[in-house]
């Protein structure tokens, strides 16, 4: 039977020499074929975790299996493409030559070099020296290098960093396209909209701990409808009769219903027909941002 878990960590912990606990007992599971968002504020431990997964740093304790191998194992690395933090290339070589160097290290031919340059739309500038590239071009080359091995697992650490809005949108589309099919993508980001748009599941890390791991939908919570109506007591009574007491609650002068927002027209009609004035009726949407701030204990707008 094919293993459905591509990344599995068990108590993964990293404490640096200066005593800083960067990653604390992370239990993470990334399934084959999904785009997994790794969310967390700056300094939460995202990059340290990713570095441990690709074998750049060794965990203080705990274990990880990546693409069926221990982190850093050459057999596992052959299946992984990664861009961890800023892309690192030789400034005196062209983008194309840099990719050839990476291909040589990976032990693969240069056949994929033009292909990946095309995927990241860098073909026309591939002959220029890396040192002259803009931040966006550097990021693209980093993604191109990560794609060279046609990897089954792609690990991208904040790939939209430093990109302008158009570049970010293009990069998101690119990641979405890359994530189609059987390829697994682990995307680290602190940009919530990015994760919401691209990812199937998310893990939220805060203070080195993985505070939750779920689908984006689960994280956003249940759907609902918010109603403000007068007289409020009669409205509450009517809605309780419609949906049952368990689905209706009162909060700050409004009534919250656990129901599909698609039924809003029916709710409005029933209230109006009963002579109840409706001043507000809208779907309740918890944004990923709200969920994130709730989970990480950070304050919005701070």
């Amino acid at each position: 039977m094919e293993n459905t878990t591509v990344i599995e960590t068990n108590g993964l912990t990293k404490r640096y020499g200066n005593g800083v606990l960067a990653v604390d007992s992370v239990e993470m599971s990334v399934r084959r074929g999904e785009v997994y968002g790794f969310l967390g504020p700056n300094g939460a431990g995202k990059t340290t975790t990713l570095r441990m997964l690709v074998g750049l740093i060794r965990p203080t304790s705990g274990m990880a299996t990546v693409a069926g191998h221990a982190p850093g194992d050459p057999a596992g690395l052959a299946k992984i493409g990664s861009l961890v933090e800023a892309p690192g290339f030789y400034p005196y070589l062209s983008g194309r030559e840099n990719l050839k160097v990476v291909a040589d290290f990976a032990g693969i031919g240069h056949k994929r070099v033009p292909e990946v340059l095309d995927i990241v739309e860098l073909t026309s500038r591939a002959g220029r020296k890396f040192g002259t590239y803009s931040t966006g071009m550097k990021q693209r080359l980093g993604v191109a290098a990560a794609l060279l091995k046609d990897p089954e697992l792609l690990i991208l650490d904040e790939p939209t960093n430093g990109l302008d809005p158009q570049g970010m949108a293009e990069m998101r589309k690119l990641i979405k396209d890359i994530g189609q099919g059987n390829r697994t993508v682990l995307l680290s980001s602190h940009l919530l909209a990015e994760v919401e748009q691209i990812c199937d599941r998310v893990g939220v890390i805060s203070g080195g701990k993985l505070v939750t791991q779920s689908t984006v939908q689960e994280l956003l919570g249940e759907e609902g409808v918010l109603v403000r109506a007068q007289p409020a007591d009669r409205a509450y009574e009517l809605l309780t009769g419609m949906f049952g007491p368990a689905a209706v609650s009162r909060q700050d002068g409004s009534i919250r219903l656990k129901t599909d927002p698609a039924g809003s027209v029916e709710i409005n009609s029933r209230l109006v027909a009963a002579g109840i004035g409706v001043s507000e009726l809208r779907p309740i949407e918890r944004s990923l941002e709200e969920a994130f701030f709730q989970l990480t204990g950070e304050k919005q707008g701070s």
Partner: protein
Amino acid sequence: MIASIKAEWRKNRFRPAFLVSTGLIAGIVVLFYSAEWYQAAHPGGPREAVSILTLFPDQFVNNVMGAGFPLGAAMALVLGALIAGSEYSWGTLKTVFTQRPGRLSTLFGRVVVFQAWMGIMTLIIFAVGAGYSVVIASVQGHSISWPAAVDVAKGMGAIWLILAVNGSLGIALGALFRQSAAALGVGLIYVTVLQIIVVRFITSFNGGTYKWIADWFDGQNASALLQSFTSPAFGRSTPPAIGAEQAVLVLVAYLAFFLIASAALLRQRDVT
């Protein structure tokens, strides 16, 4: 390992630092020969007279040996520190380490290509020295005769060994400091100043009782190895205090130590 060698060669074959250093050392050999030729043609200056006989092709091995230490050594150290240290500052070490080869394979490829470059530099030094000596002999109307092939081979081996040892010191320091600047600073101070001062102190301390310690320094052995090539044509006959065989063995030991230290540092430490 073949993949690592291939990749290291691709990235270093046109590396500006290597190209500039090779050109520089060739220029220094030309400058040395030009100065000596002028001196031989214009005796009577403040410097000791140079015999034109020492500048002909049969003596070229002895002449180019001077390029090995401390100048060639310092240059090799700079290149070693750059090849290892810049991988950290450019962030390329993590790109390389996340490809297929293991850390030690990567180091192996780097060392092979680096030492091949030291071989190329050695060849350039000898080719330029031989070429210039032919020019001098032709201009002076002297017949051209060459030193024995075995002497040329020994000379090239000695220069390569000195470059290899000091380059490996640079690689080890680059890995230790995880950057080129500190590696360059510490390495150059060690090769050109610190070692000389320490050796002088040890040699003069307590009437030279501890001179045997000074004889184990790499610089002392490099100098002794180069001096072992001096022929009577240069007017010096005092043999060096350290024999050529011992010097070779000590330098090989240093080479092994620096490479093992580099391997241990690369294998054990986190790449942050």
